[in-house]
């Protein structure tokens, strides 16, 4: 290869990714504050407005921001799908997503319905555009690797999730869609949690576990089929909400099995690292994957025994899995991008990646993250513990933000000292 097909122009400006990732701790802090000030007894009720606010702050504000930011980086660099004017697109997508999330959460949390319509317009518009933009780019990629196929599946899952969010909104406005509002909400949640978030984590894992931790590749069958199988299961499930609850549960079991096997295989891969040095990111992956395994087991038992609290615990553990992976990825991606962009500018005094976010600081984060797990499950039985959970998550978000800001400062201080 003679310098062909590769260009620095393929890597989007650092500012594109940074704006999304720096917003993650901000929404983490807001999530913690919402948890702290919510009535602890309502937090176990999924339909309670305060719970809806907390869930959306976490899943759109924290998780969504990180994932859209990561896609802006991955599409051109991993998939070879170049996004034109990435800064322009990132600016308004980021602004609309941020403002929409604030208004949606505020509308629910403070009981201000007038905020909900503009919030939904902003969120459906921005996320809908993300789907359109990225799906169309990915479809045109010639070499569709398993990661690319996984990203296509995840973006499609997001598309369905956004579509069903719109339908849920219509039912709130009194329009009959033909499906029960509760079922619509469940379908929306399934597509968002499993079709979008879990599937994107799979697609990213296929690429980064092997790359960052020098492990054997995932089995071909897992790489090739799991993301599409997850999407197929969720799509297939939709009509059965009208005709057969039994089939819906059976397909839920298939989705759970896919997640369970993915978690097991990934944990196994992490034990097969060539050089078994376990940094905080490895432990965050392990923590998240163990949490996912437990979530699936509890969900199965919860369905079998009709014990709703087990199902609630499974949902919380799934959320814990997702944020564990977000933190693990952030601690790899951000130092790498700072280092990469500074070296690309020819900055001679560019620090090593290990100095951009020191290992000691990511270890502190790991310990706080483990402390979080120790409080949120007992909170079901002692609602006052939600306050402790909130304070720990607040500390975690502040530390995470401080770590990211420190990395961004290194970049800003050195970016103009390049010789190229």
């Amino acid at each position: 290869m003679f310098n062909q097909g590769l260009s620095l122009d393929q890597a989007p400006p650092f500012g594109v990714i940074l704006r999304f990732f720096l917003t993650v701790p901000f929404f983490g802090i807001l999530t913690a504050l919402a948890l702290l000030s919510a009535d602890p007894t309502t937090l176990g009720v999924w339909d309670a407005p305060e719970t809806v606010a907390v869930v959306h702050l976490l899943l759109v504000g924290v998780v969504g921001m990180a994932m859209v930011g990561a896609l802006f980086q991955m599409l051109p660099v991993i998939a070879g799908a170049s996004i034109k004017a990435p800064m322009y697109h990132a600016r308004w997508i980021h602004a609309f997503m941020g403002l929409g999330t604030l208004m949606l959460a505020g509308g629910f949390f403070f009981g201000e319905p007038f905020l909900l319509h503009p919030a939904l317009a902003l969120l459906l518009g921005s996320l809908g555009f993300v789907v359109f933009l990225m799906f169309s780019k990915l479809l045109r990629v010639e070499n569709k690797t398993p990661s690319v196929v996984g990203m296509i599946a995840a973006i499609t899952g997001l598309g369905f999730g956004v579509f069903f969010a719109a339908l849920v909104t219509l039912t709130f406005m009194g329009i009959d869609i033909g499906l029960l509002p509760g079922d619509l909400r469940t379908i929306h949640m399934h597509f968002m949690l499993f079709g979008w978030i879990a599937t994107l984590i799979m697609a990213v894992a296929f690429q980064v576990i092997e790359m960052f931790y020098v492990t054997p590749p995932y089995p071909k069958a897992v790489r090739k089929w799991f993301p599409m199988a997850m999407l197929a299961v969720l799509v297939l499930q939709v009509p059965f909400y009208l005709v057969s609850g039994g089939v819906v549960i059976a397909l839920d079991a298939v989705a759970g099995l896919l997640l369970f096997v993915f978690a097991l295989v990934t944990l196994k891969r992490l034990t097969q690292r060539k050089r078994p040095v376990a940094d905080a990111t490895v432990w965050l992956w392990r923590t998240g994957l163990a949490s996912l395994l437990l979530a699936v087991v509890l969900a199965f038992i919860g369905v079998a025994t009709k014990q709703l609290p087990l199902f609630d615990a499974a949902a919380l553990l799934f959320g814990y899995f997702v944020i564990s992976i977000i933190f693990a990825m952030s601690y790899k991606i951000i130092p790498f991008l700072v280092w990469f962009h500074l070296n690309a500018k020819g900055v001679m005094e560019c620090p090593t990646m290990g100095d951009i976010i020191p290992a000691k600081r990511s270890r502190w984060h790991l310990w706080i993250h483990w402390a979080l797990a120790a409080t949120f499950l007992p909170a079901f039985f002692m609602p006052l513990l939600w306050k402790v959970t909130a304070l720990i998550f607040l500390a975690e978000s502040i530390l995470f933000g401080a770590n990211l800001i420190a990395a961004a400062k290194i970049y800003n201080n050195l970016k103009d000292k390049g010789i190229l």
Partner: protein
Amino acid sequence: MHPMLELDVRGLNHPEPLERSVEMFKRMGPKDLFRLVIHRMPQPLLMIAQRHGIRYRVCQVSEAEWHIWFTRDENLDLTACCSGEKDV
């Protein structure tokens, strides 16, 4: 005869292979030839090389072994570098 630099980073954890290779770029003279042996295709490294005006040639030896030749010398012919290996 070009001075030859060699670096084998197979099996090293991220980010060591990238960091060590970039250090080597900084040491490379205008006539040096640098051969990197690595366990995967380091796309970001090739982007950085390109930005530094370094030409390269990528040869795949096996699924887990790549040889990449780098030089700043405009006149050096890199076509013979991939002898017996898959020229990527």
